[in-house]
């Protein structure tokens, strides 16, 4: 008699056998004491394994593994920052120059109708100019009864320097290893 293989018994225990294979395997088990005892041994092994506690690693290996994986090729950070900056500058340049360019072209090509007006663009430009003036004339609101602190520029810049150093060192220390030692 041909006995059942370990793979077949494992698949039977995992309920991965098709209905027909399952029936024929059960038929064999009913007749073969050796395979039945082998099945019982495997069942016992799996039962014992499932009772074992979850083993936890003493070190988190994930960061090391992730570091060792090939990194996707990324653009240098300077270029990534420069690209949107250039795009904004280019858009600003276009916004400022297009109405003037249109005026120049329209005046040099007398008799030709363009069929569209750039008045909304001029309005937008005017709005931007107004905002510029508002910011230019901006003053901090004065609090009633508060005359403000009088300090010299030297003290202000020295304070700024001291705060910058404290900021760099403090942020460096406080944000150090935050990715690893999160709370």
């Amino acid at each position: 008699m041909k006995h059942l293989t370990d793979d077949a018994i494992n698949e039977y225990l995992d309920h991965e056998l098709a209905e027909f294979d399952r029936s024929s395997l059960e038929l064999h088990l009913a007749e073969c004491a050796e395979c039945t005892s082998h099945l019982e041994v495997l069942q016992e092994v799996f039962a014992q394994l499932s009772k074992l506690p979850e083993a936890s690693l003493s070190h988190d290996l994930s960061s090391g593994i992730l570091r060792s994986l090939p990194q996707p090729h990324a653009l240098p950070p300077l270029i990534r920052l420069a690209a949107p900056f250039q795009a904004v500058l280019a858009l600003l340049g276009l916004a400022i120059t297009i109405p003037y360019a249109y005026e120049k072209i329209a005046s040099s090509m007398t008799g030709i109708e363009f069929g569209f007006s750039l008045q909304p663009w001029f309005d937008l430009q005017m709005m931007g100019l107004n905002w510029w003036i508002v910011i230019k004339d901006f003053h901090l609101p004065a609090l009633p009864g508060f005359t403000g602190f009088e300090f010299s520029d030297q003290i202000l810049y020295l304070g700024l320097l001291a705060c910058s150093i404290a900021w760099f060192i403090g942020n460096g220390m406080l944000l150090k290893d935050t990715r690893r030692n999160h709370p």
Partner: protein
Amino acid sequence: MNEIGRMFFLLIVLTVSLAGYFLVLNALFAHRLAKSQHIFEQSRARSFLLGLINLLFFAVLVVALFSMAERASGAVKTLLTLPALLIAGAMTASLGFGWAAVANVIAGRFFPQSPSWMKVVMGTVILAFGGALPFAGWFLLLPYTGFAGLGAFILGFFQKELKE
């Protein structure tokens, strides 16, 4: 008496506005606030120090920029005022997030079973009334919660996702 009544009215109006503001923050930035809240509870000293040095630095920077802008003229003045306003706005928004997280933590301690919107409102009321206490509230409680909340908010950007 009239002055006290007016102050009290102002406090209530401000508290209601703050509660509305914090509710909106909770609705739109729930994940960011939950992260700040978690960090505030877990590492308060670190958050406090981080908030303190960042607020100090940016406040001095804004004052320096405004001071330079006062003496400048034309385009230079605008170029100095604009970043100062942007930084001041960003710091105000960050402080708002920090205080919203603190209000959530306070409410979580006192009203753990209440619905979330009620928790936000109650946390804001407690924080606002506590902060309105003369001297101790103005100079201790509000700065402390502000610095720690801001620090927790900043730390949230540098830490990994919370474990489920």
